[in-house]
């Protein structure tokens, strides 16, 4: 573990030419994207392409008695109107369960509802036409006869005997339950000096990608292949799923993923709309395109959170927290989402509560229930914001109960920096974390004691500011323990192929994908560094199942750690191959040679021996001049999956400084600090961007974002005017600091950084608000923290 250096005295390995690891080099794709020359699926057009619009159920729960599409089918431009039963003949249903989530159950889901719609927004018919506008015109004329059924809207009563069971064949509305009991919880509570408790409520929200979900499926009956252009995080997973449900061999499916306008986890799931679009292409034997509009994004993109979690903690007078106990309830909609399932978030909550602390006694129950709302599934920082808010909220309550400063109680209980490797009561294995170093650095960055003094001085003037802290751990670089062990065909390994072409150009294919994180940049940085060539010489291809190695893609903060390690190993191997060829040409010992700035040099003297262009020329055009028996291999492929630990945990801590206007209930965010430890930093600018972006999404959840359903299961705010995403004007400065504890699972040492910001942001804002409100004896454990909630807690309305 080292404190990330801010300045480096003298020369270091970074000062070598072509050392890009650790440098804030610009992303190679920046110019293209900034010039508006990206290639998004939304922009694509193919000959004979048709557009599909889905007619969606206006009811949360309704039986489909009949669909009359005669008038609509006769409208100009209409190619076909297809219902659920018709499409079910082309595409088989799926069930979103995994065998390692014991007892998880769900019902078969079809691309289009067959006889019953189970949430408002579920597709009941597909209208395929020559343009989206023509399809929308026709959709208005399709008559559906519904019988409205009683919806299950409130997760709190979903398991009551009086509540209808959404899928009667499943017996009840309980999708999944997990119980955990570690240590001696009852004894710890009995022996506690104080027991604190609260119910934490987390609103439903969603990812709101700038580019909505989009897919263009092209079944070519000539070569019997389906090419799917899709904004997805996991092309190989989708290849498998399209093949499986459309009765094709995997080799008959190619998934191409070009530029993607944001994903955040939204685009790693199987959507009925996407399956329907592919099935329609097969049925109609022509390209079919679907781009979700904003309304249907809100109604059909996966939602997340929507938890109610009761928590208790036992604390001793000296500040030692001896036990945590939680009871979590979450509503996931009518189906567990395929193939990753909708039980993962609750499962993560159970895994992660108490994670940063030494507290040995822990009991947890999580229940996951069905309801007639849009489905929920994995979204940035899956489960973490809930676990973190519950844990950190309880830690602050414990501190208040014994009159201890929030920073001190954390120092008292955080796992010591020299205690690794170790494991949590829930069985998480930690390789090397740096909670104390992170805490110390954070307190220094924010000048904690000066801020406390300022807070006290302002409070005397009636200005109510709060400071909130939140330590967190973060799951990154998952091994097969996440999905593979449960039977999902989701690869946890990644592959990178690197080759040198005849001009010395470096071509690299990677199975990780890019949706803005910088996968392309970090791959080029690593490969160029390993080879010793300028980064501009490296071209990276991603997102094409025909043209990249097989792998998982980009999700769960895995791209840099896993795909980056594969790139490093592939680069190293190609370097060895190049040096072997050079040695053979130069009649030298390969160990005496090196590659620097695109040239073979003498390692000892730095004298230039031969440029890579010349080497490539000889290898490709005059191999006859090479010694007999020598075959140059100018391409290397390496794959990687972490083997030592099931996950590479990262850690960090965040702080919020904010002001609450106690007259109006409005919150002004004044500053935000993050110190995180993602191991080796490949590109500091990309990491900081990821942290800041993640924090902003966490702040959105804390203050603004909320999918508001009424008691009939109707989403009432499905527009960008009514669903409030965080915007620049309300965002504070976000200062980011780093501690570096590289993972030894691999040579690169990088862990994930994409979700850390989201993990802790809401928790520290909630703690800061409660800190600000402490003179009033008001406490709020619900997000989003609206002015209305605050005024209500203050008794002003």
């Amino acid at each position, binding site marked *: 573990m080292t404190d990330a250096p801010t300045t480096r005295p003298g020369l270091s390995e970074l000062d070598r030419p072509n050392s890009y690891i650790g440098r804030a080099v610009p992303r190679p794709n920046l110019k293209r994207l900034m010039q508006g020359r990206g290639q998004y699926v939304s922009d694509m057009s193919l000959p004979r392409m048709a557009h599909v619009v889905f007619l969606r159920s206006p009811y949360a729960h309704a039986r489909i008695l009949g669909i009359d599409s005669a008038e609509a089918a006769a409208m100009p431009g209409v190619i076909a109107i297809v219902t659920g039963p018709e499409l079910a003949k082309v595409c088989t249903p799926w069930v979103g369960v995994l065998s390692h989530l014991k007892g998880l159950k769900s019902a078969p889901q079809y691309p289009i509802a067959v006889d019953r719609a189970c949430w408002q927004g579920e597709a009941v018919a597909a209208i395929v036409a020559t*343009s*989206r*506008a023509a399809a*929308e*015109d026709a959709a*208005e004329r399709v008559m559906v006869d519904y019988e409205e059924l009683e919806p299950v809207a409130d997760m709190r009563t979903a398991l009551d005997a009086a509540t209808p069971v959404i899928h009667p064949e499943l017996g009840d509305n309980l999708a999944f339950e997990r119980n955990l009991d570690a240590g001696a919880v009852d004894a710890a509570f009995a022996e506690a000096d104080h027991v604190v408790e609260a119910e934490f409520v987390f609103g439903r929200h969603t990812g709101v990608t700038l580019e909505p979900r989009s897919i263009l499926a092209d079944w070519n009956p000539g070569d019997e292949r389906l090419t799917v252009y899709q904004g997805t995080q996991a092309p190989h997973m989708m290849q498998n799923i399209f093949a499986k449900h459309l009765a094709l061999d995997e080799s008959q499916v190619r998934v191409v993923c070009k530029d993607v306008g944001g994903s955040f986890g939204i685009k790693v799931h199987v959507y009925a709309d996407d399956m329907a679009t592919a099935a329609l292409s097969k049925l109609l034997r022509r390209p079919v395109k679907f781009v979700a*509009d*904003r*309304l249907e994004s809100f109604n059909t993109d996966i939602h997340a959170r929507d938890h109610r979690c009761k928590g208790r903690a036992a604390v001793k007078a000296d500040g030692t927290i001896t036990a945590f106990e939680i009871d979590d309830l979450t509503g996931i909609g009518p189906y567990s989402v395929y193939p990753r399932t909708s039980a993962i978030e609750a499962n993560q909550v159970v895994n992660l509560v108490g994670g940063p602390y030494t507290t040995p006694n822990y009991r947890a129950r999580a229940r996951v229930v069905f309801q007639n709302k849009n489905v929920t599934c994995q979204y940035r920082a899956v489960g973490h914001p809930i676990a973190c808010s519950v844990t950190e909220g309880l830690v602050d309550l414990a501190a208040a109960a014994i009159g201890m400063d929030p920073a001190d109680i954390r120092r008292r209980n955080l796992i010591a920096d020299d205690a690794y490797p170790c494991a949590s009561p829930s069985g998480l294995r930690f390789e090397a974390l740096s909670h104390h170093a992170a805490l110390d650095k954070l307190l220094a960055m924010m000048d904690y004691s000066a801020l406390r003094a300022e807070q006290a001085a302002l409070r005397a*003037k*009636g200005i*109510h500011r709060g400071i909130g802290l939140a330590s967190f751990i973060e799951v990154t670089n998952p091994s097969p323990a996440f999905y593979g062990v449960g039977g999902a065909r989701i690869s946890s390994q990644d592959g990178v192929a690197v080759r040198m072409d005849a001009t010395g150009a470096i071509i690299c294919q990677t199975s990780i994908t890019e949706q803005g994180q910088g996968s392309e940049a970090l791959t080029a940085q690593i490969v160029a560094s390993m080879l010793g060539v300028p980064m501009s010489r490296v071209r990276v291809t991603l997102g094409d199942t025909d043209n990249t190695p097989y792998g998982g893609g980009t999700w769960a903060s895995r791209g840099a750690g896993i795909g980056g390690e594969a790139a490093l190993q592939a680069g190293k191997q190609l370097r060895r191959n190049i040096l072997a060829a050079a040695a053979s040409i130069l009649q030298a010992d390969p160990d005496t040679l090196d590659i620097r700035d695109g040239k073979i040099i003498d390692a000892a003297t730095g004298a230039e021996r031969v440029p890579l262009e010349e080497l490539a020329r000889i290898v490709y055009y005059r191999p006859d001049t090479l010694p007999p028996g020598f075959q140059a291999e100018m391409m290397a492929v390496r794959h990687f999956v972490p083997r030592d630990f099931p996950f590479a945990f990262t850690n960090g801590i965040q702080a919020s400084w904010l002001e609450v206007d*106690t*007259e*109006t*209930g*409005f919150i002004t965010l004044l500053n935000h600090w993050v110190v995180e430890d993602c191991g080796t930093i490949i590109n500091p600018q990309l990491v900081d961007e990821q942290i800041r972006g993640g924090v902003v999404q966490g702040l959105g959840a804390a203050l*603004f974002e909320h999918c*508001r359903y009424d008691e009939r299961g109707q989403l*009432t*705010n499905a*527009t960008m*005017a*009514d669903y*409030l995403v965080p*915007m620049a*004007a*309300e965002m504070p400065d976000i200062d980011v600091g780093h501690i570096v504890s590289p993972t030894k699972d691999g040579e690169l040492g990088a862990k994930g950084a994409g979700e850390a910001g989201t993990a802790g942001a809401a928790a520290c804002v909630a703690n800061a608000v409660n800190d600000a409100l402490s003179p009033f004896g008001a406490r709020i454990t619900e997000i989003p923290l*609206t*002015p*209305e909630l605050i*005024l209500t807690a203050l008794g*002003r*309305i």
Partner: protein
Amino acid sequence: MKAAAFNYARAASVDEAVQMLVRGGGGAKLLAGGQSLLPALNLRLMSLDLLVDITGIAALRGIRVEGGTLKIGAMTRHADLLTSPEIAAHAPLLAKAIAHVAHPAIRNRGTIGGNLAHADPASELPACMLALGATLVIQGPSGQRRVQAADFFLGLYQTALAPDEILIAIELPALASGERAFFHEYARRMGDYAIVGLAAQGKPAGDRIDALRLVYFGVGERAGSCPAAARILQQRHSPAILAEAQAALAADLQPQNDHQASAAMRLHLARTLLARCVNELLGRAEASA
């Protein structure tokens, strides 16, 4: 979200636009900045037969001062109001308000005429028109007529405009000496429509405020004047008078419940705004909580 098909015509003059509206019957609508109309069409909340584009009519743009009157063409864009020295000098209330209307991209297209004709109850501008005592100049098939702001805004998205009439200009009395303006709103995010806002203008005189016009927006079905509260505040300022005026808002306003805020919260915020307004107009330090 694609609009249903419609016909499109570009009018070269106000007269021509009126003729097009007359010919179009109820199925024709004017296109100004399009910032409210086009989203409604795309969301298929409405459909129409004919869109009459008036963006090319130069006579409808511009800001002039004539005598004590500020004349604003209906097609003057929010962005022009924001930077106009005439507005800043003679209608500071409007200058303050316009900065709260949406975001730069929308202000670059949205027009004052389109905004007032749209009559969104949460919009800043109708409230300013009431607080400033604006006159709206309207042209229709039978010529021009002038309507006081108080008679123009009739309800939720409802105005005194007939389907074949065009709002062509707005006339505002220039700020008189001694008059001061107050503008503030509470919105969850900068640029959002307000949960509650207050546009006010009056003549502070010692510790009284004369000729006070208080107009709330975001509360109720249209911008709401508060004559009862304003009358009370003509008395010498005291905490009791302020409290009385705040209490009177309950009679002046009809706050609604929606997912932005409950009625109780709106009334609470309206009262908070009133205190801030009185303190600012009287030049007093803001009372602390």
